[in-house]
């Protein structure tokens, strides 16, 4: 069990604020995953800057805030703030994101860039969706689309880094959430590691972010990359992915894991259970369970 949710506002007017919708959906799914909660939200893109969110410690900055800030300033960082165990800041988009990430993560092994891009913001931590909101003010977040996750850990440890969503390290604005098990995870992980890819966790879902990141960097569309998962990944998966412009999902060939969606003129909502969609979005609309090998992508 885990709960996943996604929302995309089609009106451009955000009648239901993004943070509030995704948080309400996660709260309805809370009983599916009490271990941790997280969101990956897409704000209005800012092509001139990279926005970075950096994990400093597990629940507090553990005294590393100053070092991270110093690195940020060296890269012409601005808007620096800290919240809970996070630092958040922007740098001009002329900065080399890979080099900056490497420099930040060299400060201490605990430090990890959790999200980076022109629009993506990831907030996640151990605990309930309500605690996530208390720590990060998720409810007040404005944007066009996003995804969320409540986790019931079945295969790896419960801490901040192992929580979802996962940013596809090195691929700006791409993030995923996953409910299921990737059974050829170890094989894929070994293959990627031989090519020098760094894995930050032992969570099998991380390999999805790595896989999609690589496909997108190669020039594939999100839809093509999600289709590729049906060929290259084994096991059970209902998986949601988001880029700065798109929201998409893929469901495995055996329909092991639940996933339903509702599509109206005003919005697209996807969730593990219908209860999440109904509790967040009023109105008379149909909810459909995704089919086997279903891949759908919506753009803003």
């Amino acid at each position: 069990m885990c709960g996943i949710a996604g929302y995309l506002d089609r009106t451009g007017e955000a009648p239901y604020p993004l943070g509030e919708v995704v948080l309400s959906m996660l709260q309805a799914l809370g009983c599916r995953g009490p271990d941790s909660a997280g969101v990956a939200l897409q704000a209005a893109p800012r092509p001139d800057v990279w926005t970075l969110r950096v994990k400093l410690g597990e629940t507090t900055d553990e005294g590393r805030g100053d070092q991270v800030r110093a690195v940020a300033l060296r890269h012409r960082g601005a808007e620096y703030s800290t919240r809970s165990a996070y630092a958040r800041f922007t740098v001009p988009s002329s900065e080399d994101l890979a080099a900056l990430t490497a420099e930040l993560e060299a400060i201490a092994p605990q430090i990890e860039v959790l999200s980076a891009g022109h629009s993506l913001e990831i907030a996640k931590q151990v605990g309930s969706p309500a605690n996530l909101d208390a720590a990060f003010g998720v409810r007040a977040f404005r944007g066009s689309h996003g995804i969320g996750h409540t986790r019931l850990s079945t295969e790896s440890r419960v801490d901040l880094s192992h929580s979802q969503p996962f940013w596809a390290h090195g691929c700006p604005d791409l993030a995923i959430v996953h409910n299921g098990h990737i059974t050829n995870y170890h094989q894929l992980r070994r293959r990627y590691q031989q090519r020098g890819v760094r894995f930050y966790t032992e969570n099998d879902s991380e390999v999805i972010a790595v896989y999609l990141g690589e496909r997108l960097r190669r020039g594939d569309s999100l839809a093509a990359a999600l289709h590729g998962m049906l060929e290259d990944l084994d096991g059970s998966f209902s998986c949601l992915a988001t880029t700065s412009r798109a929201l998409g999902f893929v469901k495995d060939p055996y329909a092991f894991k639940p996933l339903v969606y509702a599509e109206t003129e005003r919005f697209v909502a996807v969730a593990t259970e219908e209860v999440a969609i109904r509790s967040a979005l009023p109105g008379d609309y149909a909810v459909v369970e995704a089919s086997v090998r279903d891949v759908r992508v919506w753009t803003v």
Partner: protein
Amino acid sequence: MTIDCRGKQIREINRGIRAGLASGEVEVLNPDARHNLAVALLQPGAVRIRGSVGYYCGGLMDGATVHIEGSAGWGLAESMLSGMVTVRRNAGNGAAAAIRGGTVVIHGNAASRLGVSMKGGLIVVGGNCDYMAGFMGQKGVMIICGDAGEAFADSMYSTVCYVGGRIADLGNDAVIEPMSDDDVALVESSLRTHLGEAVRATKPAAHAFRKVVAGKKLWNFSHRDWKTWQEAL
């Protein structure tokens, strides 16, 4: 009697429904797709749910009638003994799984694993059914007006299926059998009764349905069928 689900625990709602059945029809408001609504109803009477339900609605039921005006989540009417469950829109994975009797009517589409291991009863779907419907069905009848998904009617015993649309792919040991006059009559009367005359007119003619049953090759092990067994297992 009317029950508003908002602000109530699921047990409180179900106790209310059971108490209300004694006096006739119960109307349930604001179900908000919550789980375990109207389960284990063991007496006649009608429940009308004004909205969508979550998992296991109408499960373990004996004798009542439940009308759902929205969609249903996983495990609709699971293990029902007798009675009737109708869904205005779509049903999730495992609808009517392991029912022993009664009738399940889904006016929209059914997701994966419809009627798996059913041991009796009747399922009528106005739309399509997805992956692996009818798997290991032991008895009973399943009528799909639209298309059937992959691995349809896999490894069945004696469930009889009728499909009005396309079948993506027949499961192991599933075979198509000619429609007899009795089959045509059964499909026609079931659709008229459960979809209503007007809706029935929009569905394929009864003689155009295809009948799918077990080829009985998996009923008893035989070395001659080794290839089939390898595939099935």
